[in-house]
């Protein structure tokens, strides 16, 4: 296991101070070794086990700048896996200027409400800013109160777009 200094230097990782009584969080780029934990956490959160999707997503992101797959882990020895976030910069879809999209986020259940999600959010916003965009966006199911509350707590509000859909007969 690498020490924090090596990790921070080698992987463009960021360290995020947590609240009182909580361990600091390191956020770094995902590696292939992280996939089993990501797949397990995503499966727990969504009820769907989809290893092929995550394998494809990881390799796709590896190839493209502007796409980010980040891992949060404890800054204490052992670097316990705490969560992940995936996002990318997209341009001109739906007539939108380039902006960062958060596609998914997951935090280990026992580590929620401890600043892990905020650390992941801050880290990916930092990457988006470095990519040159000034807005971050996401899309949620209307009744997904957990994630809706989380993103609102990060300062996100309804934007200028609205999602519409219909069943295709």
């Amino acid at each position: 296991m690498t020490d924090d200094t090596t990790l921070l230097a080698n992987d463009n990782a960021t360290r995020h101070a947590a609240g009182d009584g909580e361990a600091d969080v390191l956020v770094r780029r995902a590696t292939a070794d992280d996939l089993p934990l990501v797949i397990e956490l995503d499966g727990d959160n969504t009820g769907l086990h989809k290893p092929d999707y995550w394998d494809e997503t990881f390799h796709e992101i590896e190839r493209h700048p502007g796409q980010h797959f980040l891992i949060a882990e404890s800054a204490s020895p052992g670097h316990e896996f705490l969560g992940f976030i995936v996002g990318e910069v997209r341009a001109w879809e739906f007539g939108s200027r380039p902006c960062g999209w958060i596609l998914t986020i997951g935090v280990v259940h026992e580590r929620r409400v401890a600043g892990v999600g905020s650390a992941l959010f801050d880290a990916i916003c930092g990457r988006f800013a470095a990519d040159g965009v000034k807005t971050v966006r996401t899309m949620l199911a209307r009744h997904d109160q957990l994630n809706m509350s989380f993103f609102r707590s990060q300062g996100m509000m309804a934007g200028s777009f609205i999602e519409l859909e219909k069943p295709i007969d």
Partner: protein
Amino acid sequence: MKLQKATRYGLYAVLELAANPDEQLSATDIAAAYGISGNHLAKVLRDLGRAGLVESARGAGGGYRFSGNARRVTLLDVISLFEDISSDTGSGDGADTEIGRALDLVLGEIDDIARATFGSITIETLLKTMRWRREREARTAADLASPS
């Protein structure tokens, strides 16, 4: 969207008290700050007290303080104490017609979004949003004032 007067007063009181956790504020203090009726606000504060969102302290210097969990209590929790914002579809004159049902679909969509919005904003989130807005405005003002 228009909220009833009691609902707005309830939100003012909860947010004002939660924003000043170390202070006890009387109904008169809060009413003066918002230019609203002290008598009406006193009734609203009693409802908030019964719901466990505020508690009163007796004696000289007594007043109210926020006693809920700001990270858990949502705007919808407060609103629901004073009014029902759930969809009132399928009732009323003409509701059971093809046009009445089509209109109810649209009204239901709007109500659904309103509930999801109020239900996802906690007291802490709203106070944090106010702070961020103040800081952003201060930065913008400083940028405008500084010679470039």
